[in-house]
């Protein structure tokens, strides 16, 4: 549904009808994504700015969409997970060797070689991605139509958006990795709210004791998940 200037007409109308209710929550122009994020309206991002938060919520909503069985990534709290991870040593590059020189044009098989911590990658990467969105579509990512968002993410994934710093494929890889982590990690980290993602696949979480199931091969395990903090469902 893309017109030449990249803005879907159907979506444009849809978009215009939504924001008002969400403005109070986020203090910014909101999108349908923000409405869903309001399932935990009390969470105030610590690392991400308002614009970045809109981007993260919109991306997570496409990487793990709502609908069907199991929660969407936003409903599961993945944006909160990512924001909180940015305040951990991990976000500051504490688990990565960050000494230079940083070589470019190496074979991909030699792994991550960018001079950016996860925080840097998000800060610079979101600005860079939104800039590319504005150039292509006249608006930031979170205001694009869903189809446009999916197409843009697909291009990011394949490295097809052109020159950007940091490379948008690396930004996408970071987003996808952290989204999967937040969706399936223990709920104490802010994602996987109510163990919804675990329930959706049948993972029993921190039960970690299957003595009673050793002699019952092939029978479906009957118990739902527990979390590290002892929550059950």
């Amino acid at each position, binding site marked *: 549904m893309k017109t030449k200037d990249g803005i879907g007409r159907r979506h444009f109308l849809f978009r215009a009808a939504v924001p008002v209710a969400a403005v109070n929550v986020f203090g910014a122009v909101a999108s349908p994504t923000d409405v869903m994020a309001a399932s935990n309206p009390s969470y105030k991002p610590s690392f991400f700015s308002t614009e970045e938060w809109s981007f993260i919520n919109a991306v997570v909503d496409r990487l793990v969409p709502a609908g069907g069985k199991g929660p969407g990534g936003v409903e599961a709290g993945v944006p909160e997970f990512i924001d909180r991870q940015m305040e951990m040593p*991990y976000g500051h590059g504490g688990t*990565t060797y960050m000494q230079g020189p940083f070589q470019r044009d190496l074979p991909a098989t030699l792994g991550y070689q960018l001079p950016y911590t996860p925080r840097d990658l998000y800060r610079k990467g979101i600005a860079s991605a939104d800039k590319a969105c504005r150039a292509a579509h006249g608006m930031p990512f979170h205001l694009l139509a869903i189809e446009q968002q999916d197409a843009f993410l697909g291009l990011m994934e394949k490295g097809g958006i052109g020159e950007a710093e940091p490379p948008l494929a690396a930004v996408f890889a970071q987003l*996808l990795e952290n989204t999967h982590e937040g969706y399936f990690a223990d709920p104490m980290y802010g994602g996987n709210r109510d163990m919804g993602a675990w329930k959706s*696949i049948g993972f029993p979480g*921190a039960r970690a004791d299957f003595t009673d199931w050793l002699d019952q091969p092939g029978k*479906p395990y009957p118990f739902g998940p527990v979390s590290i903090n002892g929550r059950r469902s």
Partner: protein
Amino acid sequence: MAERRRKVDAVIIGYGWTGAIMAKTLTDAGLSVVALERGPARDTSPDFEFPRIADELKHGIRGELWQPLAKETVTIRHGVGDVAAPYRRYGSFVLGNGVGGAGVHWNGQLWRASPEDLRLRSHVTQRYGKKFIPGDMTIQDYPVSFEELEPHFDHFEKVCGASGVAGNLKGSPREGGNPFEGARSSEFPTPAMAAIESARRFEVAARELGYKPFPVPAANCSVAYTNPYGVRMGPCNLCGYCERFGCFLYSKASPQTTILPVLKARPNLEVRVNSYVTRVLMDDARRRATGVVYIDADGREVEQPADMVMLCAFQMHNVRLLLLSGIGKPYDPATGEGLVGKNYAYQMCAQTTAHFSEDVEINPFIGAGAAGQRVVDEFNSDHFDHAEHGFIGGSLIFASATGGRPIAQMLLPPGTPRWGHAWKAATQRHYRHSAPYTTQGSVMSYRDSYLSLDPTYRDAHGLPLLRITFDWHDNEYRMAAFCAQKMDGIVAAMKPETRSTLVMRPGNHYDTRIYQSTHSTGGAIMGSNPSNSVVNRYSQCWDVPNLFIYGASSFPQNIGYNPTGLLAGLAYFSADELHRTYFKSPQPLVQA
């Protein structure tokens, strides 16, 4: 000016498996010992307690128990002429840190080498002729035989409370065990655990095809057990948090669950944690180690004099310390001269993932690092005729599920999108109905695969990082393709709806991003004389007879098995000789 501590009889560098074995050996003999561990103190309680240990993000992904790469990593390049790049994030292998080392977060697959693995060059030459070995392949025999090591393999298995089934008891074949193994002097100390579902299906399929599947030898204790040192262990409950985690049940053998409890009360042992050894000190003639220098938790440089130096760090770190200390001659791939760093090797693995119909309940979260798994050994070592296949070595083929942790162990059919509705639906459809099968294969040593100091990159203290120069060779591509095909046949016989195999093919370079194996070997290899090796059969350094170097750094080439059984056997073999002769009369144990 370094602070100088009181001289001791022996200093141990690294307090993992071989460090613990040596601490026991030396203190048994009444020697005064200081063990230096670069990482923190760790014990089952409080560090591995349930439920906090059951945290995939913290341990399985962020690597709480691993060496922090921010401070020190390695650099890697594919070829001798390339510039190496730092291994900045974990991928291909996982390095240990802290008391227990990688022995805390290993899987516990406790293999012995095959007898022919230990005399590989002779064996291959004898069976296939000298020309069968490519010119650039630098394999050599171990200077010690399976029969000599057997009592020590046996002892270590008893220390670990290992579970399994003997396939060859004193030369008699035994049903249900490995028909290819060398003769065992005794049965496993604890019985094998029942097969988990993915392994049960593997076992049935492998039997149908005429193979002889058996339980993976597991340092996951299966019953309440007391080891030869009087340390009590408990049965594994297949919790699914094994490799990358510490064991909360005292089931997985680690230094903490098997040896360290008896050392705690010993007045002649002092363990200093957060102590980062930067070099081994030598006398002026460079024939004798006089101690070590380390950086303590407060950043102070400390000198610890000692009469014996036991290098018990991880394989890569052993080699780096030798190079940083200027011990021996660094290997030069251009001339083939020098020995320190020579013959770095790795393992080549392939994976087949099976996706079953929805009525097949795999319960993937039930699993352990080794217990409950099943394996065939038909295509490993020289258990089959290689003549027509044109390669040396082989692979284990096994039902390899260790758990179903959903961030890292989610198995989806190839072609599944990595995000969006299709990804989400696929996780729900396949998670409980998929299983991984793996080949773990040997890698030979080559003239162009070696370890050296990196000219550019440094650790947090300003010391050069270790540089790995490594890529795959034709022999290994052929080996992996052959074994992957055999594995695919077994998985096909299980009749999954779909299956897919990931295997390295010619043109695929070593990919540092994907976890493959932490079984890196070589760099301070063992051999029959000082012109072909850094250490002798007793792990004693030829050039510096009061320096002993333990671990997989001594393997002249790699095997298809996991290395811990072999490296512990070599350590106990050395310990035996120390007791027998060296402690009474410290001197070279093999005449050069």
